[in-house]
């Protein structure tokens, strides 16, 4: 008896927690690995992350390979700058893909690949910021309205009803008239709008199933405060579901940004949506030019689609871990 208690004491608490966490992680990873789709999503996300990170290398490599003899015009025109770049050696822009410009140039003479690469980290920042805000708001409100019930519950649920009434794209279009929708502000607004919406209802339903479990009662009887119970007992138990919704919300946020930029309503200097907007507003997406000038819309559109679906695939994979009813066994 004494021996056993000594062994427990010897190991510090954080080590036990770490071990438990690792064990849980290994089990979930094994489940996750079975889902080929989720692995595919994860690898696409990693690919895009690397793609975005190596962006600074791209102009340097191109400079050393193709612009060795013409450093002066490289310095003046910066042909690989995604916003103010221009290639003076090509006479008619947009020019089709070539060795110097692997994805061609746009009507203003900027390099398309460089624009696509430059936008990648920004899409990540936007999507993840917006989703994080959504999930933090949704989790806290969902947990507390499930725990307190009564007035708090009614208020937030009716608020969610109202927020869900607003077509989010239409409202963002109105907001763009009097708020300059820079990248970060757009992320904030998308995040907040989504955070008070349907996600609170879903997370509240999950929190209600946690609330009736015996350990909440036990914590209450030992004198834990409301805030402690919500933070330490309810939220950790609905966190997997929140994480899942975060993945799905990243998709939504990136899509919304792309559509707003595409319609020319967001104040963002460069993003995948802006690239397509550029092609559309200068008339390259009409009739037969659609096929002729494919490099103006295919790369950016494919990137938006791929990244959005990657996060969705990841979310679907996580759903099977979070929701055991969907598992095979």
């Amino acid at each position, binding site marked *: 008896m004494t021996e056993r208690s000594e062994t427990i004491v010897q190991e510090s608490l954080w080590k036990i927690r770490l071990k438990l966490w690792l064990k849980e992680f290994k089990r979930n990873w094994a489940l996750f690995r079975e889902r*080929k*789709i989720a692995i595919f999503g994860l690898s696409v996300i990693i690919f895009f992350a690397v793609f975005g990170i190596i962006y600074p290398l791209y102009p340097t490599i191109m400079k050393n390979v193709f612009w060795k003899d013409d450093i002066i015009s490289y310095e003046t025109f910066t042909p690989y700058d995604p916003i103010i770049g221009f290639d003076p050696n090509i006479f008619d822009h947009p020019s089709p893909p070539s060795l110097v410009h692997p994805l061609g140039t746009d009507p203003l003479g900027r390099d398309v690949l460089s624009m696509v690469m430059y936008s990648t980290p920004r899409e990540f920042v936007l999507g993840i910021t917006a989703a994080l805000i959504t999930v933090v708001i949704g989790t806290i409100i969902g947990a507390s309205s499930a725990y307190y019930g009564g007035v708090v519950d009614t208020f937030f649920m*009716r608020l969610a*009803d*109202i927020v*869900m*009434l*607003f*077509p*989010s*794209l*239409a*409202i963002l*279009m*109105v*907001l763009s*008239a*009097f708020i300059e929708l820079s990248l970060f502000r757009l992320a904030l607004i998308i995040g907040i709008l989504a955070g008070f919406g349907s996600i609170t209802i879903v997370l509240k339903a999950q929190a209600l199933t946690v609330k009736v479990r015996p350990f909440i009662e036990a914590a209450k009887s030992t004198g834990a405060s409301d805030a402690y119970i919500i933070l330490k007992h309810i939220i950790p138990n609905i966190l997997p579901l929140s994480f899942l919704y975060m993945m799905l919300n990243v*998709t939504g946020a990136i*899509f919304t940004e*792309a*559509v707003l930029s*595409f*319609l020319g309503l967001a104040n963002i200097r460069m993003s995948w949506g802006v690239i*397509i907007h550029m092609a*559309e507003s200068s008339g390259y*997406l009409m*009739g*037969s030019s*659609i*096929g002729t000038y494919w490099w103006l*819309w295919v790369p950016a*559109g*494919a990137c*938006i*689609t791929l990244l*959005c*679906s990657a*996060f*969705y*695939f990841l979310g*679907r994979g996580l759903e099977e871990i979070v929701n055991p*009813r*969907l598992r*095979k066994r």
Partner: protein
Amino acid sequence: MLKFLSKRIVQIVILLFIYVTIVYWLMEAMPGSFTDKYLMNPKITPEIRQNLEKQFGLDKPAFTRYLYYMKNFLKLDLGISFSHFPKKVSSLIFERLPRTVFLFVTATLVSYILGYNLGKRAAWRRGKILDKTATFVGIVFWTIFLPLLAIFNIWLFGVILKILPLNQFINPNVWRGTDLSAQNVFLNLLLNAFIFLVVMMISLIFAQRVKTVAAKRTIVLSSAVVTLTVSIILWTSTGLGIYALDIILHMVLPVLTLTLYSFAGSMLVMRDTMLEVVREDYVVTAKAKGLPDRVVRDKHAARNALLPLITNFVISLGFTLGGGIITETMFSWPGLGRAYLEALNSQDTPLLIGLLVFTGIFVLLAHLIADVLYAFLDPRIRY
């Protein structure tokens, strides 16, 4: 049930008033107004502009205008549009509503039928090739950048294959010789589609009464063929056939795009519900009884997994405006979504508010219907 309904309706009315108020003040907060457009126009002097403002009531304080708006709203009057001046907002909405509704109802119906059938089969053969491809392709289309899909479809069907018109609602060359109103032809088309749906519903109900599979099939198929032939004969005999065909041809691409974009939503819902239903005891019993695989799948499992799909369908119909903006812009389809974008660009506040309020009412009604339908279809749910 009645108690629940009355409670819901009171809630809906309160929600609607809060919603209208928020929408009104949001529009009020937009900088500038409709008359600012004429600031740079030398032909319009400041006096005329002031007169314009007075006529539109823009000189009164915002709060007074809000009270006026609410008073008119209670009388079901949404005001007069600025940019289409003498026309009322409500008449503008009702002019454009059928187009959007027709587009979306067709696309949603097709995508739900597709989603139901694919989801059912994917869940039944879980992990097999059909399940994997359907899920993969479905999610890629579900998360695709909608303008990209639209551009691609325009390019493929309009430019390369040259079998479908690129965009717009009608082809002016076809309509030049007549004084027919496109809207009237379109409304007749809508009525025709509605009658077709009703006939199909009735034949489906009749088909349930019949015992054998072959008889069921003949009833459904023959009623569809008969209705279609009768309507085609009617259209051609009145000489309106080419005009109706023109509109239908213009509809194919937007409907195709919307269907591809949205079928995965219903497919995934169907698949996930089906996966849960498949584990129920009654499915095991049905299999143990030795029933054919298809009968167990269609009659025992799929029918019980249908419930979330139906409510999902009703709710998704409510969100036509938001989804319509992109599609209608890409295909220049003169519906509600495009009206919204135009109103936003010309700062036509009454039309903007009217459109948003109308969508709000639409969504609320859809939710109410979904609730009632749930109780009606699922005997376990009683309010």
